[in-house]
């Protein structure tokens, strides 16, 4: 009888051990399944890919996003740059980045003096409360940036699907 209990005890210990390993494995799998999120560092890297080593000055770029967003799947976003948009002084490109979506890029826009106004609107996805940054490249080779903090209550990108 005693021997049997001993045996049970041993097996119980083993069972617990294997259960622990299993749980650990499951946790690892869950981490692997979640898409790698962009971080402020990867965003900086993405910005440098577009800008190179040129200095980025703050200002002249304005992003209009509601400060509190209920649904991150569709967030209205307007970017405007303070520029006269003449043949000699205009905005060449505007790039929009985010900090915490799976990918740091949002949209890259190319324009020229024909635009008349350096302004565009779109609807974007936001996976989390985060900062959105826009960088404008001007015809004189300078870069300007603007950013805005957004609070998102329902995130995009990571929700389960039903179909």
């Amino acid at each position: 009888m005693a021997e049997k209990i001993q045996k049970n005890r041993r097996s119980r210990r083993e069972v617990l051990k294997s259960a622990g390993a299993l749980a650990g494995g499951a946790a690892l799998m869950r981490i692997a399944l979640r898409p790698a999120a962009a971080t402020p560092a990867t965003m900086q890297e993405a910005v440098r890919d577009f800008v190179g080593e040129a200095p980025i000055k703050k200002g002249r770029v304005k992003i209009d996003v509601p400060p509190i967003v209920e649904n991150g799947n569709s967030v209205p976003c307007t970017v405007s740059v303070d520029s006269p948009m003449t043949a000699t002084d205009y905005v060449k490109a505007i790039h929009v980045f985010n900090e915490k979506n799976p990918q740091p890029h949002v949209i890259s826009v190319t324009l020229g003096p024909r635009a008349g106004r350096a302004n565009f609107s779109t609807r974007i996805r936001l996976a989390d409360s985060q900062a959105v940054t826009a960088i404008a490249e001007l015809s004189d080779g300078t870069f300007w940036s603007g950013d805005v903090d957004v609070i998102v209550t329902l995130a995009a990108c990571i929700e389960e699907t039903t179909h």
Partner: protein
Amino acid sequence: MIGRALIHVPPTAKRGEVIEIKTMVAHVMETGYRIGVTGKPIPRDIIDQFVCTYNGEVVFRAKLFPAIAANPFISFFTVATESGTIALSWTDQHGATRVQTAAIKVE
């Protein structure tokens, strides 16, 4: 698959006037990060290029990423220089294109 496109271009404008062009196209913009019921990720399917030409000259171009919401809406400005055609084209990652044109009369 790129669905129906809705565009708004003012039919008439004064020469030199800055006009707003609004566009929206039906498309899922699947990010590639969502997991389907089978447990496998749903493959990415996005429109990645948008181009606006005014009488053949490119006036606005956008490169889209998965962070653009489904049924991409884009609005922007351009200067009405002459009467003619404004053509808007969307291209998805597989190379399929949809073009929508609008006539504009400039006085």
